[in-house]
């Protein structure tokens, strides 16, 4: 009888130990840093943005390039304008808004192979 009870206790402890290890493993990957630098609300509710921002960008890019419809609402420029870090002015790099989430989710993005990840100040573009 004692032996069976000891066995059960050992099994419970082992399972708890595994669960603990799993939790530790999850925390080994740094959680994404979501820090909103500018503006009160995004162009759509947060849940929608999380799920569909790539679709919005995809459609906007074709409209802009092929039809010349430069509606700024879903433009990548608009994203970068609000979400770039205040100190680096970029959405990439450590704790960058785009980079930190994408590295957490292990999803590569090609936007910034061509597009600039740096916020362009409106004053600079106006004076040019």
């Amino acid at each position: 009888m004692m032996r069976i009870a000891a066995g059960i206790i050992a099994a419970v402890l082992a399972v708890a130990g595994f669960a603990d290890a799993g939790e530790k493993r999850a925390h080994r990957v740094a959680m994404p840093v979501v820090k909103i630098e500018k503006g009160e609300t995004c162009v759509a509710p947060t849940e929608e943005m999380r799920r569909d921002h790539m679709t919005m960008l995809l459609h906007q890019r074709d409209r802009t390039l092929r039809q010349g419809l430069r509606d700024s609402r879903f433009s990548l420029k608009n994203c970068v304008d609000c979400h770039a870090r205040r100190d680096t002015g970029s959405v990439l790099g450590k704790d960058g808004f785009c980079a930190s989430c994408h590295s957490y989710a292990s999803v590569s993005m090609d936007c910034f192979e061509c597009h600039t990840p740096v916020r362009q100040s409106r004053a600079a573009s106006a004076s040019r």
Partner: protein
Amino acid sequence: MSLDRRQFLRWGAAAAAGAALAPGIRLIELAQARSPQEAASALQRWGLLIDITKCTDCDVCVTACHEENGVTGHGRPETDAQWIRKVHLRDKRTGYAQTLPFMCQHCEHPPCVDVCPTGASFKRDDGIVLVDKHTCIGCRYCVMACPYGARSFIHETVSGQKADAPRGKGTVESCTLCVHRVDRGETPACVQACNRDGGKAMVFGDLNDRDSAIHKRLRTEPSSQVRPDLALNTGVRYQGL
């Protein structure tokens, strides 16, 4: 006030008739200013007229273009991108020398669009020939097909791009006629620079608009296309060539 369907339709017809009373004015308005909500349309065809007799030995157009679009090189002229360049012509017998800016000629029938296997090279409805770098696979067929040598391939990783002119390794690019500026209602950077600091040799405008300066000049003065034998109907025209 309640509105029945018949009355609504009658009012709608009256409004349409009112709009049609002044069709000329309406069309000109459409052709000149385009709101950000309005797509580029075939009512317009953007073009350039370059008077070579006024073109001086400067290169402000090249500098302005490369500054505006963030076109930077690595000091390797063989492979560095070139959106616009100054071409120097010299008659061998008489020694008469000319210089002119040369860039994508924005053809009506662009060979670069014909050969593109992915549809990345395309002509916008208002006649501006562009590369969709999202679908460009860097095959460089268009570079071969262009009779004007206007396209460049980006061989090396790019950084420090301008927000309005994305550029990336492995894609082809060329003069965009400063499409981002045109959509804002401005003239291309080269034209602005030439009229400010250069020989005032360039005119930008709508080739379809009879009231535009470029249309008037083309209608009343002699001008030529480069390689007219190819029948590409270029959007960039030259005077004094």
